């Protein structure tokens, strides 16, 4: 039982990381109707910038703060220079354009930081495991990730649902022409949304950096999961992204935790050992296929009036 709780915590924690990435992606997709394959690159850039600033200042927190500001700036410059010409064009153009950006970012990162990768080291007091329940030890930093993401999610909720900018963002998602007809500067709004998405992706990259490894292409694998999340959750819906992130995180983690053993009960040891991991990595895609068949608009579609 305690083991199950621990694995669920692992799943929720993975879900939280996915949420940060998926929230930005779904905002950009839902509001700007832009398919952004370079979102994972911003995740990578965020991690590299934070690792660099942390190394320069010697402080983990200062690294995160400066990295976040720098990623926001990168996002805004990127929107103005490269993304703007893509608005109103075909989705295929978006995919080609942003895929080009993805390659561009991988090469520029190799050019600046070299191929060896970097590490963002935790302050030593965060390296320990804490007892969350009697007998359940959990890495302290992963608890920090869960709490920090919940805080960011809460802020995002307040921003989108309770502020004037949020109202404009929601209005832009529902009816873009009407918003611009009412005299709202939609160009500025788009830059803002893209910058916000970039900052969220960068934040995800930098808080994931201490548990993974800052390396070229680090955003690409997790970006695929983030796309799965927004398809399951409903495109443009932050609530959907939140719920779907946790579902995907739990399914992926619990699948890895239990399926291999389950498969070994039915099959020979070696066949089960190979099939288990393969099957557990397919689970979330099966869920996505199911959602696409039975609820193509996603579990929590953004309201469109």
């Amino acid at each position: 039982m305690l083991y199950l709780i621990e694995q669920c915590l692992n799943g929720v924690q993975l879900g939280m990381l996915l949420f940060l990435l998926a929230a930005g992606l779904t905002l950009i997709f839902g509001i700007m109707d832009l398919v952004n394959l370079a979102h994972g690159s911003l995740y990578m850039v965020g991690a590299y910038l934070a690792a660099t600033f942390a190394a320069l200042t010697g402080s983990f927190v200062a690294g995160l703060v400066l990295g976040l500001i720098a990623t926001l700036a990168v996002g805004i410059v990127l929107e103005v220079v490269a993304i703007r010409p893509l608005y109103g064009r075909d989705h295929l153009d978006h995919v080609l354009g942003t895929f080009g950006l993805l390659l561009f970012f991988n090469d520029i990162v190799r050019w600046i930081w070299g191929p060896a990768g970097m590490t963002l080291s935790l302050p030593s007091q965060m390296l320990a495991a804490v007892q969350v329940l009697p007998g359940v030890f959990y890495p302290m930093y992963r608890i920090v990730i869960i709490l920090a993401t919940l805080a960011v999610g809460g802020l995002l909720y307040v921003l989108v649902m309770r502020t004037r900018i949020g109202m404009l963002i929601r209005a832009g998602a529902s009816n873009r022409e009407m918003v611009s007809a009412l005299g709202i500067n939609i160009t500025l709004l788009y830059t803002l949304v893209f910058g916000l998405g970039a900052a969220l992706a960068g934040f995800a990259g930098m808080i994931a950096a201490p548990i993974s490894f800052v390396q070229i292409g680090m955003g690409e694998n997790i970006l695929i999961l983030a796309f799965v999340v927004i398809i399951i959750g409903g495109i443009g819906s932050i609530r959907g992204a939140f719920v779907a992130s946790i579902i995907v995180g739990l399914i992926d983690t619990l699948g890895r935790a239990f399926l291999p053993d389950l498969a070994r009960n039915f099959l020979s040891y070696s066949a089960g050992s190979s099939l288990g991991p393969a099957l557990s990595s397919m689970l979330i895609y099966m869920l996505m296929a199911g959602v696409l068949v039975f609820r193509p608009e996603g579990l929590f579609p953004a309201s469109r009036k």
Partner: protein
Amino acid sequence: MKRIVLVACAALALAMSPAAAQQKTIKIGFVSTFSGPVAAIGNDMRNSFELALDHLGRKLGGLPVEVIYEDDQIKPEVGVQKIQKLIESDKVDFIVGIIWSNVLLASLKPVIDSKTFMIVTNAGASQLAGEQCSPYVFSTSWNNDQTPQAIGLYMNQKNVKTAFLIGPNYAAGKDMLEGVAATFKGQIVGRELTRWPDQLDFSAELSKAAAAKPDAIFAFYPGGAGIQFITQYVQKGLKDQIPLYTAFTIDELSLPRLKDLAVGIPGAQQWVNDLPNEANKKYVADYKAKYKLSPSFYGSQTYDAALLIDSGLRATKGDMTNKDALRKALEKADFKSVRGNFKFGPNHIPIQNFYLQAAVKEGDDFRLKTVATIVENDQDKHVSKCKMPN
């Protein structure tokens, strides 16, 4: 007059032709991973090969060399395409490199069918040592299961009774876990294969390992995955509870990233940077001087490959046409390997020592050092399955 000019031309052509034949260039197709997260490994191999060419005066067996570097992007299907291109359109004399066992297995057929010589400088798929051994394929590395077999022996020495084994789900991962299981005398309480190469997070597997309460964990994670695994292992607080034993997880490429996290975690390896032979001292010192980095075992194996090719071509006086003679010359392995003693088994896999290595902190520097020799002159166990034609 015209006739004299013609005769002069003919004489000149005659005089030129043997010289032209001697000017044959040895073409090497070098396949490794130069892009993406593990590009650091490919760079280390390329650096070491270039350094070896520098040491040999940019010549192999006295002939000028042309090296064509190709990136396999860590994908078997890309690797085999690149190798086919190197063989068919570049008509290379040697294929050198290959990090990944699954890339190697995908690429063996075009190499063997075209009778191109291949020096594998890392991948150690057990099939290559056994049923798929070939007169044209040589390895300057090891067979996959030898290194984990050595660490399994060391775990016995340390009186480990129960162990949890974990590695990535591809050809090498399976070989590695089999390797530990072959020599480890205690009980194996769990065996886990994870997604490769795109596993993001090991939390589920580490929780599972901790829940199994073993005396020790064995892990095989090359490249960045190893950094992730060890970081998460330490963050989970397991370093003080369940000792970790490794193969190919802590090396000179990952140590500068892992720093303190890696200190005290043992690993086995057939080469360590401080091996006290002259060839190795020269290799390590010149590598550090040229690239301002420390070479890793990947590089050391690739350095040896250049020396091996040079020794073979020197014995045949640069003749590539008599393949049997070249093969016999390569089998003699008449060169000074950076790992000390080096000789081939009948399946063209080296028979060599395996050392216990430890990550230590000296001042502000972290480095790997040899602690002990675990096994001497170890031969892989697949050799009996190899039917090498004479």
